[in-house]
């Protein structure tokens, strides 16, 4: 599972960075989305990978930590998802406004000459 997850994070981040460096605003925003997916998975996996165990302690206090998922990265990733969603939406608004003002979806606001 570790290899699959780290490969997924790596591929998402690499694709995101490649798209970020492309000249169209649509590619940039998809690249930023992929990059934020990568970082969300990364934060999530930082609480160690566990399957089928609850992030809540059962009644009666401490339990075997191998039967317990760390709840903090889950809370952190929730915050990160909300923030990246909001900033992406705001970026989209700016991009649409720029598209309307310049008439092109090139990040420089004009097509390359020649």
């Amino acid at each position, binding site marked *: 599972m570790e290899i699959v997850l780290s490969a997924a994070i790596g591929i998402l981040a690499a694709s995101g960075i490649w798209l970020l460096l492309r000249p169209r605003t649509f590619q940039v925003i998809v690249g*930023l989305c992929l990059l934020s997916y990568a970082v969300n998975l*990364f934060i999530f996996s930082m609480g160690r990978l566990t399957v089928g165990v609850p992030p809540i302690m059962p009644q009666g206090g401490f339990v075997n930590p191998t039967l317990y998922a760390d709840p903090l990265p889950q809370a*952190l990733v929730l915050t990160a998802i909300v923030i990246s969603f*909001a900033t992406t939406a*705001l970026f989209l608004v700016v991009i649409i*406004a*720029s598209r309307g003002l310049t008439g092109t979806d090139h990040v420089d*606001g004009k097509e390359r000459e020649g």
Partner: protein
Amino acid sequence: MTGDWIIAPVVLPAALAGLALLFARRNLGLARGISLAGTGALLALAIWAVATTGDPQVYRLGNWPAPFGIVLVLDGLSALMLLLTAGLALTVLVQAVTTGRDRKGPHFHALWLFQVMGLNGAFLTGDAFNLFVFFEVLLIASYGLMVHGGGAGRYRAGIAYIAVNLVGSTLFLFALATVYAVMGTLNMADLAVKLAELPPGDQALMRLAAVLLLMVFAVKGALVPLQVWLPGTYANAPGVVAALFAVMTKVGAYAAIRFGTLVFPPGNAATGNILSDLILPAAVLTMAVGGLGVLASRGVARVAGYAAIASMGTAFVAIAGFTAPGLGAALYYIAHSTFAGALLFLVSDLVTARKRGARLPGGLAALFLVAAVAVAGLPPLSGFVGKLFVMQATADHAALIWSAVLGTSFLLVLGLSRCGSRLFWKADDAPAPRLSAGELVGPLWLTATLVGMTVWAAPIRAHLDGIVAGLLNPAAIIAANTLGAVP
């Protein structure tokens, strides 16, 4: 400032911004009243905080004990940064109102208050993840302010600015997740305690996290090679907004000082001197890039942007050693360069508001001269005193740093005098226009601040040295957090 008041600099602008959004959408007078009263109250709070600076104070959000809950920490450095933010914000806000720049688009005052809330929160928080959240708050507000007034050029620059900062936020998250994976905590004081006990096998990961964090702060603080976003953003943002942004680069410097003294103190077992070793060459390069940029730019707004980069280089050179004299000099220079940079941006705003090539008022030329003298670090203004402090503190590496500081000052003098003569020297018999009183408020206020910083340089420096002594004694902040204790 004690007890529940510590959270007031965050809650007050947040509540007022909500009010401005709800009730003052069509009523500019009410919106102005709300934001002026709010920023004025923040200045009063900040003065109170600085006046009563003593041992670090902690406010527990939701009364959860650290490190399980999030804490706000008010110490000398936080109080100083609150004062800097509120002082600058009020001055520039008055200028925005008297010149009517806030009419150019909707929601200027709500965005302004959210921006100040994010800045205050970033300066107060004692939790690394909460720092990320406040970075986002101030960034989201700054995205709105950056494109205030609209226009194709502004939106084009806005796209680059937002994209760079979104990548910066992603880096910040990668860094924080790595920190949490290794340390199991994100409270800064708890990190400081646990870092000392880190097993050698995990130290490499923490070094990685420290460098990632430094990269994030370098994006904010415009440290070479991550300064590329700044000139375009500042040149295209509305002048009053660029003047407020003068304090935004200082968030990067603040965060570097905070992490470099509390979490990763120099010479600790895990990260050693890695922060100093990376900051020093980057800062010297930043000064060079800033100076050359000033020389290469045409418009006054771009000149001001590159001058801001050069000033961040000077501040980071003083920060790099994390020594008492260096940090004292850095804090003085940070305060000076915030006001001097803002003054230059306000002047550039007044220049660009007039018709291109038209004869400019003589008063504006005088203001430009004051701003240029302050920014370049010539006597008699505080830039000279600040650079002197920086050079005193870096006498160990005099050959490299002094030549960089002095060479950059020379480039700034050249670039600014060329910019000024191109703007103001005209063989023209047209009647000389005058500046209106409303246009003079902000620049005169900032000039007075700079003069005050020069005249009272010694007492200010003594106060700053007291703050630095507190910073270099992280035990006090750690004790204030009362880690693990149930209240």
